[in-house]
């Protein structure tokens, strides 16, 4: 593997993503865990830049760090005395089985395309424009059905949230 800016960037973002992930599961403090999660998500945004998808990178920062992570910090802080938890999660065996299964699935999914005789595809060097992305979302041959389904799902979730939050009397 040749050493160039992309390779160095890949390693930096990998360290950020994986290190952030390790931070999330090892820290005892939920707020610090949220910050680690943001570090991890930031690393993922870096991957999008390396994959020539700046739009997705910006959306990653905006939505995941700017909105979802902030919401998580809110949830963490509004939960009573949750920042210094002492109880331990003791069901070790089910957790071990579940994480091992997930790890094997990922291992299989990632290594088979590398070592199998599948046609390898390089990451596109041409930067995908936002226009391409927008066309793909509304094009009949593109992803219009998933796009509409996601919209319906989000609308349903929003209506549900309003319904739950509404006063009983009105």
């Amino acid at each position: 593997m040749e050493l160039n800016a992309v390779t160095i960037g890949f390693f930096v973002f990998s360290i950020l993503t994986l290190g952030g992930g390790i931070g999330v599961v090892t820290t005892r403090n939920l707020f610090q865990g949220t910050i680690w999660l943001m570090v991890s998500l930031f690393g993922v945004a870096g991957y999008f830049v390396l994959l020539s998808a700046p739009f997705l990178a910006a959306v990653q920062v905006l939505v995941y760090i700017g909105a979802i992570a902030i919401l998580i910090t809110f949830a963490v802080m509004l939960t009573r005395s949750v920042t210094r938890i002492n109880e331990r999660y003791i069901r070790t065996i089910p957790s071990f089985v579940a994480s091992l299964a997930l790890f094997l699935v990922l291992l299989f999914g990632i290594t088979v395309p590398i070592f199998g005789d599948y046609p390898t595809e390089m990451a596109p060097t041409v930067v995908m424009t936002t226009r391409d992305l927008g066309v793909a979302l509304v094009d009949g041959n593109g992803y219009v059905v998933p796009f509409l389904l996601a919209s319906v799902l989000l609308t349903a979730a929003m209506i549900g949230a309003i319904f739950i939050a509404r006063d009983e009397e009105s």
Partner: protein
Amino acid sequence: MDELCTGLCKLMVESGADAGLAQFASLLVGVLLVSGVPLLTVIILIWVERKVAARIQDRIGPNRVGPLGLMQTFADLLKLLGKEDITPTSADRVLYNAAPLVSFASVVLIWVVVPFTPFHFGVDLEIGALYFVAIASLGTLAIMTAGWASNNKYALLGAFRVVALLVSYEVPLVFALLVPVMLAGSMSMLDIVNAQAGMWFVVLSPLAFAIFYISSQAETGRAPFDLIEAESELVAGFNIEYSGMKFGMFFAAEFLHVFTNGILMALLFFGGWMGPLYYESPLIAFAWLGLKGTIIYLTTLWLRNTVPRLRIDQIMAFNWKFLVPLSIANLILLSAALKIMQELGIAPRDMLSASFVDVLPTTVVMLLINLAMVAYLLGILRKRGREARREAGANQGMLARAASGAGD
């Protein structure tokens, strides 16, 4: 040699420097310039802000250090640097020290996509406008972190209050930002400015500008939304534990953010560097941008020093019940109008190459839509105001009766 090496880098290579070194040096100069301009501006801005505030309040303002008090900021800076750097014992050390940096960086990084002239800019990102929103959202994170890491309940409560405000006002801000993006058909800041060669976007949609102006005033935490630092009754808010230069970072970030917003509004709605003779020299173009940004900046200072503070519930109600629906309606109506006019052939499909005459019908229709919306809104507001006054009158009458009854 690739296309990255132009200008200074090319010059260095031609005079015999190493290609890699030349590229690195020219990039470094670019980065230093882009980050240096805002860092130097903020020193002047603090003086400007204090002088303007003083004049509005019928005071003189800083006038002792240097001519017209111009050196006052440097004296303050030295004082801040010399102060004891306190970290509370029970604070989270790393996060406590990182928060001011993130806060300042979230403002300085916006300048990466600010085009100073048609030829001088940090980067012309294809997603410039989105980049601005994404970076600005990091400021919220900094405030939350500062409030939590201080391990002080007043700081935490202050952070809650502010983050609620910032997250809420980001919604109308983005919807208002979408109007220039939609009109220009691009998120690149350079394209957005160039698309205003025919007509400034503020004329096409004054409502979008007004919403952007109000939301950015809230985003910077200035009056009437100055809940971030309500010094008198809310114990300063999230930055209560900070002292010395760390406090100075928050302070500088806020001052710079206000000016940055002025420049952004000039770029998005007032044609950026467009003005008479801007094509003659980049310096004239830069002067136009500076002038427009400064005028908008001064109006925000004027507003800040004139209006009283709102309560948090009033701020939230104003945002969610007024600004958000208004910004969505504005966007839907304008985009529908633009599409219909493009289909009819009276609106240019590409704003970038449209002249004044090409844009004229679009301008008239959009302006009329906006004016109609404003008229409708004023009607609603008038009705609400009347109801509120009637209610207040009734309450007062009741109070007066109760008082006179007690007196008997």
